[in-house]
């Protein structure tokens, strides 16, 4: 069983990039979930980031809401981070020189011994030495 952690770069690039490679990867991961071979986890932050990304990418509120509703139905588990987790994330973000937002996903991947899937090159460059991370480019 693989635990995947996905961020908003994966979700929104799968939708908005002309190139469909990220979309195909997301579909493959979902296929693994469907067959009981994997689980997808994310921090609650993901929903806000996806909504904000839609807010500033899509001009129609009705379309943005429709997209977000379909996203709500993803078979993924939201992980509620404790204050201790947040302190750990803050510490790690200082160490890596990264944002707390981006570090949250990776911290969750390390905690769940999973794989953080991201399109964020800058974060990947800063944190790849820690493992538990895969860059989709």
């Amino acid at each position, binding site marked *: 069983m693989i635990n995947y952690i996905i961020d908003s770069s994966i979700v929104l690039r799968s939708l908005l*990039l002309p190139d469909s490679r990220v979309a195909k990867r997301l579909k493959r991961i979902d296929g693994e979930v469907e067959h009981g071979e994997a689980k997808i986890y994310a921090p609650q932050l993901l929903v806000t980031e996806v909504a*904000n990304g839609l807010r500033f990418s899509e001009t129609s509120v009705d379309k943005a809401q429709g997209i977000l509703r379909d996203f709500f139905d993803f078979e993924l588990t939201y992980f509620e981070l404790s204050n201790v987790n947040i302190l750990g994330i803050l510490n790690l973000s200082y160490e890596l020189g990264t944002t707390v937002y981006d570090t949250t996903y990776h911290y969750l991947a390390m905690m769940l011994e999973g794989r953080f899937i991201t399109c964020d090159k800058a974060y990947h460059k800063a944190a790849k030495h820690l493992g538990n991370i895969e860059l989709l480019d």
Partner: protein
Amino acid sequence: MINCMSTKRLTVSLPSYLYDMIKREVPERQISGVVTCMLEEGMYAKKCYVKESKVRAVDRFLSWRGKLPKKTAKQITEAIRKGRM
């Protein structure tokens, strides 16, 4: 519920006791708002109905691809981060 959303009409059948309760307790002009609020909560909790769609949510999500203008990776990143302090 946000009042500025576009709306559509839907006729539903309710158990009499629920109908009487709504008519008794909710002011006439607030019924749609109250029902919408209840439906929103219920739909997202998904406890009272079985979804008919056999299509995976990811597939439904990705089916929007053809209906949206394409963006660059940079534009997507900026949209996600817009407003972050």
